[in-house]
């Protein structure tokens, strides 16, 4: 290993990178744009526009509607005067939920009977619909309990006891903020995307330029070339991580609960898989276009399988098995563990070990495949 040659490559890469303003802008800004977009777009299914057809027009029905409004999941945007009006609002997408309160709602309550209230939800987006439906059920239950208590007090009979008192507590992300979950995931995703892409293009570009041919016939060793190429990429990677973390803390108020040092160390471990993948693709692809097409076959499935969007535990078993071959899966667990849960090596060592093993495997395979030859 001749360090001077490796350093020469690294210095050349730095010079070229910072001279290309468009790449600099793309590499530095795209991650932040992703964080902002994911951070905001992932926010809950709150304030769903709702259309109400209140046939009861009573104090009781107003009370029920208030309960829905107070939940913050429904926003009473429209009043309808017919069933057709309700259907039309939902059909054309203005409203995502509809509430129909029957004319005899108040009178049935006074008779001690159970009136039926209809809540219809546009379930095109199943996930959002599921949330709205369960919130609606919960509102119904809590309003009922309130009415029963009130009735019992009015009649002077003892308040009926509830069977089981479930005290649910949210740990770690106590406020149940979606962005707390998403932003660390975006960090992992951006690392995966940017690093793989940059390492792939740094070699494919030299092949397209013909400069690789010139390097191949120089006394430089493959290991020196690789090291020289990786150092600048790691620097860029760490700049990205730092920017995303600052953004998470200062903009989204997502603090890092665990050790930042450990986080930076695991980022280093993750570099080996991403840079290795990039180099591997560059040994197969002859042109930049080919490389981009090839890399999609890896980036797309690995994002979907990693648990970034869909939890791995909820996947069919064969897909779960596949997801354990994706380095991003481990890195996501690590990043979320450190940032959200604040856990350390004592819990994360299996993931870190497996990530390191996968990374070294891919990296060594890629570097041995990268022969100092043209053919």
């Amino acid at each position, binding site marked *: 290993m001749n360090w001077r040659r490796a350093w020469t490559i690294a210095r050349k890469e730095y010079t070229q990178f910072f001279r290309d303003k468009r790449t600099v802008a793309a590499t530095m800004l795209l991650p932040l744009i992703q964080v902002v977009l994911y951070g905001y777009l992932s926010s809950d299914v709150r304030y769903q526009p709702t259309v109400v057809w209140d046939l009861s027009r009573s104090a009781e029905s107003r009370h029920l509607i208030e309960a829905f409004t107070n939940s913050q999941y429904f926003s009473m945007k429209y009043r309808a005067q017919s069933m057709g009006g309700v259907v039309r609002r939902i059909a054309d997408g203005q409203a995502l939920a509809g509430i129909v309160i029957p004319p005899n709602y108040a009178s049935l309550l006074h008779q001690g009977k159970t009136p039926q209230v209809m809540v219809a939800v546009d379930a095109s987006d199943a996930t959002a619909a599921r949330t709205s439906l369960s919130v609606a059920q919960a509102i119904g239950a809590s309003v009922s309990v309130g009415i029963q208590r009130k009735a019992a007090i009015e009649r002077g009979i003892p308040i009926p006891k509830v069977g089981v008192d479930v005290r649910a507590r949210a740990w770690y992300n106590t406020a149940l903020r979606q962005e707390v979950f998403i932003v660390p995931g975006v960090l992992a995703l951006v690392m995966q995307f940017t690093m793989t892409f940059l390492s792939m293009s740094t070699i494919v570009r030299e092949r397209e330029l013909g400069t690789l041919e010139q390097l191949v016939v120089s006394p430089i060793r493959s290991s020196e070339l690789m090291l020289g190429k990786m150092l600048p990429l790691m620097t860029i990677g760490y700049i990205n991580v730092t920017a995303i973390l600052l953004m998470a803390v200062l903009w989204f108020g997502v603090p890092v609960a665990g050790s930042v040092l450990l986080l930076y160390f695991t980022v280093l471990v993750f570099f080996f898989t991403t840079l290795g993948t990039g180099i591997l693709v560059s040994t197969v692809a002859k042109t930049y276009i080919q490389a981009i097409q090839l890399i999609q076959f890896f980036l797309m499935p690995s994002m979907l399988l990693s648990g970034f969007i869909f939890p791995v535990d909820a996947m069919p078993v064969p897909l779960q098995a596949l997801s354990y071959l994706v380095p991003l899966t481990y890195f996501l667990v690590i990043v979320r563990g450190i940032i959200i849960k604040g856990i350390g090596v004592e819990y994360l060592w299996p993931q870190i070990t497996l990530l390191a093993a996968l990374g070294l495997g891919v990296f060594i395979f890629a570097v041995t495949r990268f022969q100092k*030859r043209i053919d």
Partner: protein
Amino acid sequence: MRVALQLTGLTRRFAATTAVDRLSLDVASGEIFALVGPDGAGKTTLMRLLCGALAADEGGALVDGIDVISQAERVQSAIGYMPQRFSLYPDLSVMENLRFYGTIFGISRSDFEARARSLLVDFALADFADRLAEALSGGMKQKLALACTLIHRPSTILLDEPTAGVDPVSRREFWRLLYGINRSGTTIFVSTPYMDEAERATRVAFMTDGKIVSVGTPAELKAALHGEVVEVRCSRYRDARRALHGIPSVRSVEMFGDALHVLVDSAETSISDFRRQLQAIGIEDGAFRSVPPSLEDAFVAKLSA
């Protein structure tokens, strides 16, 4: 005679084709050796084999006595190779490109400064040291590539069609530089599609279909051409060419600039035949004269033999 390049049975195949076919050749130290051949003859493959960028299937090659097969890295430190395509970093300046290759080839910092300065002055690039390579003209790019090839003082340089697509003035300047480099003791192994360039070489090899069909000084190659060349100028070249081909004593008819070159055993006895043959198809303005054979005539004769 010290041997700079020694090829013995060098062979390289790509799938069904044999790009370089059991090639044996010696190039003496201090020569300007030109490799001439049509596209696809295997010239680039041969160059790449000699600098260790491609692996040989059979045979071997010594460069300055070092085995290319087993000691590619030592060979690579000793030689310079300039690929056919311009292959420097367009987004680095002239000086940055030079420094990059200087360091890769392991020359010391102090040595580099002196070496770079003298190359830039000799190659008339000193005023453009800070210009990005992409902003250079075609001829200047080639000169910069040559300078990068020479930065580590190689004993032998391999140049793959260095002047292809370069304007005639720049070509002449480039060859003037090559002579200067050669005078200071560097062996030059150069492939070229231009016959006039091959004429300037110490020795020339004709290569076709992966084989070298003849080697010699330009004078030797021309002398080896058995026959004489008649230059024919007339109208309706295509018809004339077909008509001349029909004469039994004619061995080949080739376009040569704006005239036809006809290879025959004896020019004197043929010219009257030619005139008659052309008049028979209505070409009356034929002008005929015997000319000394050029290297291209020799090459064409060799190919058609």
